[in-house]
């Protein structure tokens, strides 16, 4: 039943006391697909990434990686199986140099390719710099690089372009699209910048108040009246 899906969430819930941030969400992303995950603030997008990546465990629902149930596995175990993620708030190792932290990340996975990842993300010239001393835009790409070391099968990205200039975020989108194709990485991407989402995603899932509102190709979603009302407004 899970043939062809790289990452799947089945009946995913997340409750805080009496409040449900996610109410039985189903999501399935095909191998090699770049899926956008959009919705208004508080829709549960980051929470869904947290559940899929293992930051949150012990909730109802299941998570499948290449058809294998990983619901009980810790984040580090999921990472070693090829499920990587980046963070909305830059989450790097400030005191370590760029190269050193990528090297450390590579020890947990096979087929590391640290030099390749640094080259693809324009970090080579910064290799010896402590991460705290590089610019914000460089830190965002380092955050992404930490997730890309070892060529994960599935990449969960929580607003990779947050805080970047328009130019920077389009540059990042191009790199992402290119790497996902060449390395055959399946991507689930939370992003507020609709231009980025529409330009690089194969399909889009819309969350609203912890539930799936719509799902489909880019053109369908842009035309969907419910999505326009709940989220896109006149922007689309």
């Amino acid at each position, binding site marked *: 039943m899970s043939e062809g899906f790289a990452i799947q969430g089945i009946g995913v819930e997340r409750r805080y006391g009496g409040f449900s941030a996610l109410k039985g969400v189903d999501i399935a992303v095909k191998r090699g697909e770049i899926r956008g995950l959009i919705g208004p603030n508080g829709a549960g997008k980051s929470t869904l990434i947290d559940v899929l990546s293992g930051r949150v465990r012990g909730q109802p629902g299941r998570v499948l990686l290449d058809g294998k149930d990983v619901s009980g596995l810790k984040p580090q175990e999921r990472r070693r199986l090829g499920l990587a993620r980046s963070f909305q708030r830059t989450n790097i190792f400030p005191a370590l140099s760029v*190269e*050193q932290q990528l090297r450390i990340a590579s020890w947990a996975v096979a087929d590391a390719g640290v030099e390749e990842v640094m080259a693809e993300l324009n970090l080579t010239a910064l*290799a010896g710099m402590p991460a705290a001393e590089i610019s914000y835009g460089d830190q965002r790409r380092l955050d992404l690089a930490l997730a890309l070391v070892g060529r994960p099968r599935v990449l969960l990205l929580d607003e990779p372009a947050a805080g970047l200039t328009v*130019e920077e975020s389009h540059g990042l989108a191009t790199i992402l699209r290119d790497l996902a194709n060449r390395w055959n990485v399946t991507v689930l991407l939370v992003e507020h910048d609709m231009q980025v989402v529409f330009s690089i995603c194969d399909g889009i899932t819309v969350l609203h108040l912890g539930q799936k509102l719509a799902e489909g190709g880019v053109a369908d979603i842009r035309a969907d009246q419910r999505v326009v009302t709940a989220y896109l407004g006149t922007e689309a």
Partner: protein
Amino acid sequence: MTSIVDKGAPAEVRPASKTARILGVAALALAIGIAAPWLVASKLTLSLTTQAIFDALLATSVGFLVLQNGRVSFGQAAFFGLGGYAFGVLVARQLMAPELAFILALALPTLIAFLLGIVFARITGVAHAMLTLAVGQAFYEVAFRWRELAKGDDGMSFELPERFFGFASRHFQDPAVMVVVAWSILVLALAGLALFVNSRVGQIAAAVRDNEERARFIGHDTTIPPAIVYAISAFLAAIAGLLQATYNGYIAPQMFHWSLSGSALIMAVVGGAQFIVGPAIGAVCFFFLKDFAGRFAEYWPAIVGTVLVAVTLLMPQGMVGLASRAWTGRRSKP
């Protein structure tokens, strides 16, 4: 994207040459130490230096926890005391060969620290400091109250057996010998720490210190590497305690006391806890400052305190931090 000026990666020191450099410096330091008793005639100076080296080992132990785990401990004397007591009690009761007692006295604190470390590594900041303080004082109370163990508050003298590791054991209470033994152990300990910091486990521990959550999300276990750092740190404290107990032939509950942990922490910070050698240098300077002030003034703690305040204000990175900044500053000038 950010503009990139230079495509070439900055020159990185290769791990193999780093190891060679560490071992080279260590060999040089060992040679100097072995020559010391011939160069220094005064028994008093040798004896004071020996004691200063014990302090340096304890300060290194506390500083390493700050450096590699980012944790401040107020209970490191527990492992110092445990090393000394385990050895003293086992030898005094002649329960086993002294060599075996020596090994046990190092293994026991190391193992305890590893197990405690699994829990302590999850706790940060003030809570961590308070917890280590409480655990350390619990050991102190046991040593203080349990008279049958080692005469409680009075402390206990013990006789070393005739021979120890094949040498006449009176040598270990001769400052001209002990200064070389203690110095050699300190040098080997510092070299070992430098090698550990560059090892995989050491670097993963540094990553956990920097950002525990991200370390998990790049696929690393975040429990064992910090626990290994706790174990190494306790091992060093235990060696210091054991050497001091051997040298003095005496153990007392003060070896566990939090004030000893606290002064070791001060020495580490004064020397520069961001550097492996910082705490040892801080401890030696602190020791001789205390000695110097004590000879000339009745209220010597006031002098020591004033100097400490000045050092803390003027050198936030410690003495080694200041020296290293001055060095890089001079080198970067054309």
